[in-house]
């Protein structure tokens, strides 16, 4: 009898009205914890919450309009005109004007810009270049060209970071950056009322806070993704978001391209990807990720020590200096590269990245932003001061431009790396954007009112 009663209760429970999953709710505060500086370019987590670019990238990496509602080029891509979106305001209430955009861009890019001049014409921003700029709309979506207010209406420098983005800075005290929803954001008010970004807790402290409900979104370093998954954290891993590469000087002892080619052949990329980055990265010898081109296999990743010795041809290079632009896994990667080089007959000595003299070799990460291969190629190659711009976007032109650039051996691609974050149970609809950053403006909270 009790059994029948229990079954009846169970059936009744099953038929009770239960809450379904709904559209996202507005409200609540998202709590984020990170190790680094939220404003650090490129892609500090607060930057795209507060600032917008003239263009943006959708989740597929395609260029979409942002502060510019449209654009045209003429004179064979030597001149571009971007029309500003009307009715957009900075967080201090001042309108977005073409003059403000030009001031911001000039501050962002004082030299080595993709353009030669930029100036305001009415409600448009006009770029001119000495050479064609076919990828300008995609390049302007990059982190370095986000638009910030540089002067208030009375000509003073604004205090703090003021942009047009979905959140505005409320306060930044004691390592806690507080952002409030921009009610009049041109993209629509964000779903959360506020975001609190707590800066500098160690990664394991972040994970602890996530597990006990004190944080909603935390960082997961690439090399710790498996560990986070083993701890049953909900981990979001992006597409390749940056390239680990070795920048090689083409002066001094390394003016000889054969020596630079020998360095490229001597590095064990698979060990870097599998051991240092715990199989979360993909060993690569190409600038562009496989998913972007489909021809990355034409640049073999295998280490070839015999070839390295052959290319070195018995030449004795003096001790090379090696700097690292980062720490943690990057420093371990640099140590392994130094060992690889030693096996090929080079001596590499690690030096401080901030030293007065530029190192012969610099291990660094370069953002891979966007879904348009030609634009990514230009952006990556521009980061080492030698932009490779294919004449058109056909795969063959792209391959030739990449091949020509890599044959100089001034930048040696090593590993494509994703970004990763973990989120708590309160957070819903959190996705990573084209830059591998969490799209916090479109995320909402399950327990929002």
């Amino acid at each position, binding site marked *: 009898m009790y059994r029948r009663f229990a079954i009846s209760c169970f059936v009744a429970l099953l038929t*009770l009205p239960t809450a379904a999953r709904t*559209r996202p709710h507005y409200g609540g505060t998202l709590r984020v914890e990170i190790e680094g500086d939220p404003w650090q370019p490129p892609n500090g987590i607060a930057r795209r919450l507060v600032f917008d670019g003239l263009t943006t990238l959708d989740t597929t990496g395609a260029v979409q309009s942002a502060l510019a509602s449209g654009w045209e080029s003429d004179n064979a891509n030597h001149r571009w005109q971007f029309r500003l979106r009307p009715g957009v305001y900075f967080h201090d209430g001042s309108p977005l004007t073409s003059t403000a955009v030009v001031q911001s861009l000039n501050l962002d890019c004082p030299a080595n810009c993709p353009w030669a001049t930029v100036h305001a014409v009415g409600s448009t921003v006009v770029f001119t270049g000495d050479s064609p700029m076919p990828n300008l709309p995609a390049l302007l979506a990059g982190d370095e060209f986000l638009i910030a207010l540089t002067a208030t209406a009375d000509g003073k420098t604004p205090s703090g970071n003021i942009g047009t983005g979905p959140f505005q800075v409320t306060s930044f005290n004691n390592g806690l950056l507080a952002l409030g929803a921009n009610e*009049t954001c041109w993209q629509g*008010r964000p779903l959360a009322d506020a975001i609190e970004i707590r800066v500098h807790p160690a990664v394991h402290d972040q994970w602890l806070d996530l597990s006990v409900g004190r944080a909603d979104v935390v960082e997961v370093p690439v090399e710790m993704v498996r560990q986070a998954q083993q701890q049953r954290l909900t981990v979001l891993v992006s597409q390749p978001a940056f390239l680990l590469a070795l920048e090689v000087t083409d002066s001094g002892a390394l003016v000889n391209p054969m020596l630079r080619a020998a360095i490229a052949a001597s590095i064990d990329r698979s060990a870097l990807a599998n051991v240092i980055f715990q199989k979360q990265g993909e060993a690569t010898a190409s600038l562009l990720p496989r998913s972007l081109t489909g*021809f990355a296999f034409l640049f073999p990743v295998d280490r070839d020590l015999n070839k390295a010795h052959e290319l070195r041809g018995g030449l004795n290079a003096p001790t090379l200096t090696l700097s690292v632009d980062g720490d943690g896994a990057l420093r371990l990667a640099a140590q392994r590269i130094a060992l690889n080089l030693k096996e090929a007959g080079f001596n590499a000595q690690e030096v401080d990245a901030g030293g007065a003299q530029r190192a012969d070799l610099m291990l660094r990460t370069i953002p891979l932003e966007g*879904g348009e291969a030609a634009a990514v190629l230009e952006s990556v190659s521009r980061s080492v001061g030698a932009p490779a711009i294919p004449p058109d976007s056909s795969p063959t032109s792209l*391959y030739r431009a990449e091949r020509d650039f890599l044959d100089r051996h001034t930048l040696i691609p090593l590993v494509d790396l994703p970004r990763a974050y973990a989120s708590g149970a309160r957070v819903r609809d959190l996705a990573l954007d084209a830059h591998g950053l969490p799209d916090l403006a479109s995320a909402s909270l399950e327990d929002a009112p």
Partner: protein
Amino acid sequence: MNRNPEVKVQLPAPNDIIRANEKSAETMKAMKLIRWAAMGLSVLLAVSSSAAATSPWEQPAAALAEQIAGILGPGQAHLSIRNVSRISSEDVPAIRKLLEQDLKMHGVTVSDDESANSIRVTLSENARARLWVAEVVEGSVTQVAMVQLSPDGEQRAQAVGGLTLRTERVLTSREPVLAALETANGLVVLETEQIVFETRGPDGWHEQSRVSIGQRRPLPRDPKGVLIPDGGAQFEAWLAGTQCRGSYDPAPSQGQWMVSCYASDDPWPLTQSDQTAVPVKAFFNGARNYFTGVITPSVGADPPPFYSTAWIPRASGGTALVVGGIDGKVLTIENGVLKPIAGTRDWGSDFAAIHSGCGTGTQIVASSSGEAAVDSLLAYEFPALEAIPVSAPLDVRGTVVALWPAPDGKTVLAATRGAENQYEVDRVSALCN
């Protein structure tokens, strides 16, 4: 080279068949058999000919072979093929055969001789397209040829259940689609900042014109909108804080849509029940993505804030308003009484009534709760206060962002956002099993 020779099958002429009437029954039977066999044969040949003609690999194989021949010139070469794409391994021999044939046409003979020049073909792909790469090795020199192919369209199976839901693509768009309405003068599409007018062509809808809505304030995230017909050649549109009215001027000098939009916080019309004489409207929270819960004229009970509503007929003869609350609970308002509905745990926030004529005549098509990787649609009936699924789930290409009934109520339209932020409007119809 012609791979698709025209196939001609001689069929009996009509006069021959008429003359056959005068012959014996046996002869007629034999003639019929021959006729059917000939027709069957012709159909088979036509199908095989058509299949060959539409082989997706022919064109890229020809293009790649031409490039390879341009590098190598006439002679012998060793050909190897590697497939690192999602092309089925069963297709690779056919691709190899096509390449061999096309290379031969250009004077390159494929040989097994390892000492010959070498062609290494890799069937690769990137996130957007397929890419076939040929590495042509002549001694120590390697040159590369490439051909890019568009990926195939995805085929989808239809779901089968108590009734079967089917989708038919109406349009695709790069911009978010809030609603769409077919009128006698074309398709009206409501986007977040513009209203787009499309005319039907032989291969689907084509954009004719677009009109800016000119909102004074930005729409909230997760925006909603409604389009309803207002007579044969008019429509009304509602978005947060804005209302538009459109009319079509058929005069030859005009022949175009006239649209006027203005700021408005008036209540939005809810989908109509046949039995309700007075249109029922509800106030929308313009700063959020839901209705406030205030319905006018009153339906006898005040629901909580909600996302969606639908009218369903009841066995008693009346109608009930189904309300999807923002808390995820689904309620009905019937005879002025608010009651919860069970069995809606898997519902998303969007649903619409469909007058299919199957089963009880009307079902509710609801989006899934979004727990799965892709959304699906399911039809439900309400014999009492419990939603009973009456169809199998129908997978849709992406996330359902809006669902609304067509003006005739016999189908519903679903707007979905795909993985690549491509928006699509599909017509969902129900087939009785």
